[in-house]
C-alpha cells in the first residue's frame, strides 16, 4: 500500500510547525509505522537540530531532488525510535532550487518506502510552501491562539482548499490560565474563525524548549503535557477516534478547599 504525505504548515512563523512535525512523526513511528520526516525549509534548516540528528547529515533533500543521491542515502535513521527517518534540508541553498515537479518526483519514491511522510513547510506562502504542498495527501495547519496567527492560518487554509486539500487544525500553545483571564483567545474562538476539523489541542509546555535544545524527542517524555497531546494527535491522524482533550487549569489547593467548604 502506498504511504501518505502529510504537510504541516501555518503561514506564520514560530507557531510550532517544526516541533509539531518532529513530535507527530516520532509518535507515528512509536505506533509502529515507517515514518519519514522531511524538512522543506531550504536555507533555514532546523528539524535536524530539534531531532538531535545534525551531526549525522551527509546528503540532504536538494541532493535527492537533483538526483545526486538516493533517498536511502539521505534519510537519517533515528537511533532512539525505530522506523523514524529524517530527510534534512540544505542550509546553503535557497528555496528556489527545488521545483514542485522535483518534489513531486521525490514524494512518489517516498510514498513507496514509508507509511507516512511528514513535510515541515517553511513559514510564508511562497515557493517553499508550494513545494511542500504539491505532493501532499493531507494537510495539518498549526495555529497559536493569537490574532495574527489565526489570520495567517486562515489565509493558508484558503490556499489549501484551493488545492483540494481539506486541512485539519492543531491549536498549539494554549495557556489555560491566560484564556481564563481573557488575555488569550480560547480554542473555541480560533475554531469559530477557521472552522475546519480539529485534530488536537496542545498546551503550553516548558519541556518543549528543553527538548528541542537537547534534541530529545518530546513524545518520549511521559511528563510532558505537549508530548502527550502530540501522541494523541498522531493516533487521530492514524485513523483512531479518541476524544479531544481540552487543556484545563489544574485547580489550586485553595480553590479545592473552597469547593469542599461550599464557598463556591
Amino acid at each position, binding site marked *: 500500500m502506498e504511504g501518505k504525505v502529510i504537510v504541516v504548515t501555518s503561514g506564520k512563523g514560530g507557531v510550532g510547525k517544526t516541533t509539531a512535525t518532529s513530535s507527530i512523526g516520532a509518535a507515528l513511528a512509536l505506533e509502529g509505522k515507517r515514518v519519514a520526516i522531511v524538512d522543506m525549509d531550504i536555507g533555514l534548516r532546523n528539524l535536524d537540530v530539534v531531532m538531535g540528528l545534525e551531526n549525522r547529515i551527509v546528503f540532504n533533500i536538494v541532493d535527492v531532488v537533483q538526483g545526486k543521491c538516493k533517498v536511502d542515502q539521505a534519510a537519517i535513521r533515528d537511533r532512539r525510535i525505530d522506523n523514524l527517518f529524517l530527510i534534512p534540508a540544505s542550509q546553503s541553498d535557497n528555496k528556489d532550487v527545488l521545483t514542485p515537479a522535483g518534489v513531486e518526483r521525490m514524494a512518489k519514491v517516498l510514498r513507496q518506502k514509508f507509511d507516512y511522510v511528514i513535510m515541515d513547510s517553511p513559514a510564508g506562502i511562497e515557493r517553499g510552501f508550494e513545494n511542500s504542498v504539491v505532493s501532499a495527501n493531507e494537510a495539518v495547519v498549526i495555529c497559536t491562539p493569537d*490574532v495574527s496567527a*489565526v*489570520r*495567517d492560518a*486562515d*489565509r493558508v*487554509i*484558503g*490556499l489549501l482548499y484551493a488545492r483540494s486539500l481539506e486541512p485539519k487544525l492543531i491549536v498549539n500553545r494554549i495557556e489555560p490560565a491566560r484564556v481564563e483571564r481573557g488575555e488569550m483567545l480560547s480554542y473555541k474562538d480560533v475554531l469559530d*474563525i477557521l*472552522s475546519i476539523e480539529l485534530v488536537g489541542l496542545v498546551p503550553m509546555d516548558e519541556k518543549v524548549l528543553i527538548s528541542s535544545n537537547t534534541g530529545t524527542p518530546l513524545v518520549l517524555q511521559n511528563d510532558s503535557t505537549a508530548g502527550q497531546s502530540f501522541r494523541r494527535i498522531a493516533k487521530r491522524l492514524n485513523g483512531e477516534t479518541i476524544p479531544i482533550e481540552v487543556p484545563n487549569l489544574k485547580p489550586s489547593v485553595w480553590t479545592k478547599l473552597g469547593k469542599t467548604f461550599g464557598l463556591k
Partner: protein
Amino acid sequence: MINFDNIAPVKLKGAGGGLWITIDPSHPESELIAEIDRLLKKLKHLAINADVTLDTGDADGQEELVERIKIHLENNFELGTISTSPQKRSIPTERRRQRDLSKGWNHHKSDVLMLRGRVRSGQKINARKHLVITGDVNPGAELTAGGDIIVLGTLAGKVHAGYPGNDGAMIFSLAFNPSLVKIGLITATGAGESGIQGPEFACVEQDSIVVKNYMKDNPFKRMPWPEVI
C-alpha cells in the same frame, strides 16, 4: 482599448438600420459641425440614404442648435431622414407603484451576487451591484460591491459598499465587526468589539458612517410596498 470616459464633441453609432449622432453642446457649434463632417465623410457611401437621429445626450434645451445642424446635414450630405431624439420617458410614480404591486419583479433580471460559505483571509470578492453572503466573513477578507452588502453571519475584514461613489448603499450583518468600512467615498475604521449583540447595519448620515441596530432602526420599515432594487 475602448475609452469609456471619452468626451469627444461628437459620437457616431450605428443604431438599428441607421446612424445615431450624439453631440455635446458644450463645444462650439463650428467645432461640432466640423467633427460631424469629418465623421460622415469617413463613412463615405455608408452615409448615403442613412436614417440619422440627432441627440444631445443629457443636455436639454438645445433644440435650436440641433435644428441648425439638421439643416447643415440636409444641405451637405445625401442622407435619408433626419430626426431628433425622442423625449426620454420616465415612468410616472403612479404606474411604478402599480408595477411594484403587481409583482413587477417577476421579469426582473437580478444583478445580485449571492454566495454562500466562509470568506477567508486574503480572499477578495467584487460584485457589480448588490452582494449577499450567507456565511461568515473572516478578518483579512475584502468585499467590494457597487450596491449594498448583506452578510448573514459575522462580518469582519474590509468592506466597501456603493463602489465607487454611491453614498446611499448600506452594509448589513448579523454580527457587525469589520476592520474598515467604506460606503461610497466615505471611510470609517472599525471600532473593535462593539459589544452589541444582534443584527446591525451601516449607512451614511450627514457625511459620516453610522452603525445602527437593525431591529430598532430598520431603514426599510417605512417603505409602503416592496420595491425592486
